[in-house]
């Protein structure tokens, strides 16, 4: 605790650093902010690899554990290359209000020295790439244990370009939603609503796992999922607080409310299970955590601690309810609940941002001139547009993929497990 220390030794080494930061300011690149965004980039990649891969892998049967990891890993690689070639340009090129265009294809016009704000554009590019990676990987939870590997890759690649990149442009790339003043700090619309809506549709087009809904086997390794969940939590600090693109007061508050929402939603889910079934489960508490994090994401830069708690509570309740709804009412085998947790959470958070972002609820304030009501309208337009676009293009992409390579592996391969039948290896040779 140097803080305490300072009281003891009055002369400190920090003075030169202060002067220095003046100079840095003049020269535009801010090294403190750059350091934080570099770190956040590592944290967000960590969410997918190995975080999300483990979270999902623990939930499936042991004969499909490697296939789920393979999905996440290969999508991450594919998206990275596509992002460099065209994705980034589609999302962050000047373009028009609908589409970023081709100006930044293969980072053309961006040199090592180009800045984006006060950090290098290369850093902004890589940071954004980690968001582009995790979003299609979230959808993996909709189709495990039965989808063809070639279809997974084709779907994910097209989805990145036709759903993710455009919506990102609308919201963060200067497109029409951002012009309208939509608030989405770290991806309630861009990441969670797109992935959630698309997951639900894909799952229903693909059809359920062989033994759905009765006859399903419990998660083969909840501990593995816990490891993944914990990594998601840690990485989410980079996701939300990194979205401030600076090591500043915004980042600080974003990290705080992110953490509080995660903790609150975890407890909510745990209590529901405890009361309903008498057994609070590890799978339950970590699912609550993801629900809380997805819900706070769009609001994380706007709300205060009170907002964090309330959003955590609402996120936990709503997503719990949605899980049951999809499984029992809709009977769609969105196997690992991508829509119920990410979709519902992301949408709820986007709407709630306009409530808890208001100063009256302890938030940092809505955009000038906006009221809670007016902002709620804008947020709703964002939600509707994002969901419709995601559904429409997911439909097209799935049809196309189905036509090219087909969607499902054979029943024999399902029985054998995708690890052996598709990837030629087995998860546990203990």
């Amino acid at each position, binding site marked *: 605790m140097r803080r305490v220390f300072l009281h003891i030794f009055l002369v400190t080494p920090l003075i030169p650093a202060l002067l220095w930061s003046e100079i840095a300011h003049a020269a535009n690149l801010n090294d403190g902010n750059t350091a934080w965004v570099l770190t956040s980039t590592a944290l967000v990649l960590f969410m997918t690899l190995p975080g999300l891969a483990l979270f999902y892998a623990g939930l499936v049967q042991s004969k499909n554990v490697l296939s789920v990891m393979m999905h996440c890993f290969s999508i991450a690689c594919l998206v990275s290359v596509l992002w460099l070639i065209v994705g980034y340009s589609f999302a962050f090129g000047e373009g028009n209000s609908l589409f970023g265009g081709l100006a930044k294809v293969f980072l053309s016009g961006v040199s090592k020295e180009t800045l984006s704000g006060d950090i290098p554009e290369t850093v902004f590019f890589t940071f954004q790439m980690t968001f582009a990676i995790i979003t299609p990987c979230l959808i993996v939870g909709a189709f495990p244990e039965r989808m063809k590997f070639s279809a997974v890759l084709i779907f994910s690649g097209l989805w990145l370009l036709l759903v993710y990149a455009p919506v990102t442009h609308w919201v963060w790339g200067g497109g029409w939603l951002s012009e309208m003043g939509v608030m989405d700090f770290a991806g309630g619309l861009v990441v969670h609503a797109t992935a959630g809506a698309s997951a639900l549709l894909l799952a229903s087009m693909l059809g359920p796992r062989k033994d759905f*809904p009765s006859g*399903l*086997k*419990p*998660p083969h390794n909840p501990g593995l999922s816990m490891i993944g969940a914990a990594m998601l939590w840690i990485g989410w600090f980079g996701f939300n607080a990194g979205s401030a693109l600076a090591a500043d007061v915004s980042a600080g508050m974003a990290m705080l409310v992110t953490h509080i929402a995660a903790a609150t939603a975890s407890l909510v889910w745990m209590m529901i*299970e405890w009361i309903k*079934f008498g*057994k609070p*489960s590890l*799978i*339950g508490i970590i*699912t609550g955590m993801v629900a809380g994090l997805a819900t706070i994401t769009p609001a994380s830069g706007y709300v205060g601690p009170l907002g964090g708690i309330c959003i955590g509570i609402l996120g936990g309740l709503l997503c*719990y309810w949605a*899980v*049951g709804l999809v*499984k029992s009412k809709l009977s769609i085998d969105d196997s690992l*609940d991508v829509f119920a947790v990410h979709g519902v959470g992301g949408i709820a958070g986007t709407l709630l941002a306009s409530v808890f972002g208001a100063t009256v609820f302890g938030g940092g304030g809505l955009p000038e001139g906006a009221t809670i009501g007016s902002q709620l309208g804008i947020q709703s337009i964002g939600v509707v547009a994002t969901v419709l676009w995601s559904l429409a293009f997911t439909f097209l992409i799935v049809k196309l993929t189905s036509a090219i390579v087909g969607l499902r592996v054979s029943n024999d391969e399902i029985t054998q497990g995708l690890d052996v039948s598709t990837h030629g290896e087995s998860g546990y040779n203990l």
Partner: protein
Amino acid sequence: MKLVMAIIKPSKLDAVREALTDLGVQGLTVSEVKGFGRQKGQTEIYRGAEYQIEFVPKIRVDIVIDDPDLDRVIETIRSVANTDKIGDGKIFVLEVSEAMRIRTGETGANAL
């Protein structure tokens, strides 16, 4: 010789082994099995959905013994493994026509 094949609760393994050793049994072989019977497996609930676990973990103990020891062995297992609860398990007895100790080539009761 007889093969005594006892299906017991996992928590009773150590007690059974000790009791048999006290009785003079020189060796036994144990496998992890899953049982299905009157005792039903637990129901696990994940994210609100119920998963019925049909099978209950059990331990199978195989002991080959000389004929005269049969009754004492059965009785010992029974008394130690019994908890008066459903699922305590079964003891089955099969005839063994030959036994050999690999190391020495001894056969019959000497091999046990």
